[in-house]
């Protein structure tokens, strides 16, 4: 009975029937809006101009390493895995605070996770290799402290995290900075 139906040709034909990437993007975005972890992208020296990573989800085959990505990186890195193919996790460079990923074209992507229980990740430093500038991130704001650190060898600033007054101190060089924070006791 079934030999009259061209099953193999039909199966191949159906294999070509897929939804558009735009439609799939909408499906992935259907989850509740959340505050996404901050995303820092460091281009290797000599790489092309920086690409702005937004939620430009695209359909693609998830890389073989996507299990690692899911386990280590959380939702932002999952979405990155949908944009970049053949993404691998740098387990040595990754910490509970940030996940370092390498894309196929050599781009290094660093995903910074939540701020930490005690706000320890609310303040972070990012060195932009392509421009040679050091950025100090306090929450969602990035300040360029390169010149001040080079001139004075130290940079300090007070800030507030969850109602608590704190002080950050950056020492060293823009290429190798050290960051310390302390709670100010009144």
């Amino acid at each position, binding site marked *: *009975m*079934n030999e*009259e*139906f*061209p*099953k193999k*040709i*039909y*199966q*191949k*034909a*159906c294999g*070509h*029937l*897929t*939804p*558009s990437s735009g*439609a*799939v993007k*909408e*499906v*992935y975005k*259907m*989850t509740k809006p959340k505050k996404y972890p901050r995303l820092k992208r460091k281009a290797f020296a000599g790489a092309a101009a920086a690409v702005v990573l937004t939620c430009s989800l695209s359909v693609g085959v*998830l890389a073989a390493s996507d299990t690692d990505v*899911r386990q280590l990186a959380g*939702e932002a890195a*999952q979405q990155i895995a949908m944009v970049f193919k053949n993404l691998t996790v740098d387990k040595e460079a990754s910490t509970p605070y940030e996940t370092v990923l390498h894309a196929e074209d050599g781009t290094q992507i660093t995903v910074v996770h939540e701020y930490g229980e005690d706000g320890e990740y609310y303040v972070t430093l990012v060195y932009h290799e392509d421009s040679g500038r050091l950025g100090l991130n306090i929450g969602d704001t990035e300040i360029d402290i390169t010149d001040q650190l080079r001139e004075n060898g130290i940079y300090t600033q007070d800030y507030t995290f969850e109602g608590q007054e704190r002080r950050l101190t950056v020492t060293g060089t823009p290429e190798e900075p050290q960051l310390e924070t302390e709670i100010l006791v009144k």
Partner: protein
Amino acid sequence: MEEIRYIEIVAQYQDMVYRIALHDCRNSHDAEDIMQTVFMKLYQKNPEFDSQEHLKHWLVHVTVNECKRLIASPWKKRMEFVQEKEKKEQGQAGAEGYERIREKELLEQIFRLPRKYRVPIYLYYYEEYSVADIGDMLGKSPSTIQTWLSRARKKLKKLLEEVKYYE
């Protein structure tokens, strides 16, 4: 529903849901709308599943119901799949291999079959469900599904002969 789980389900079943919807409504835009609706329901309702098969049954069942809802809607654009595909393929004639042309021709004729036959054809010959499972998903008896498949094959054979598919 956990986002990781949701993303896994979407990645695994987006094509299946889309294809079922496309077989039913024969229009890629409607099929995409239906796909989005189905996964939105999945995420919002967060039903519990005993097994992967149970999840798959749920997706098929909801997709078919959404197709029915769309067909019943007076606002549905009745754009035929065949016409839409022809517009997209203008200028591409001759560029594709013989096999691909055969595949498209076959799909075109399957999409000319009566609506009630098309989704069972897909579920039986592509997803390879049994007639009992298909009946369960579509709310029909296995013998009804068996009859539909048989009639669909006969009708398809005639359609393919008309376009000289086997020559």
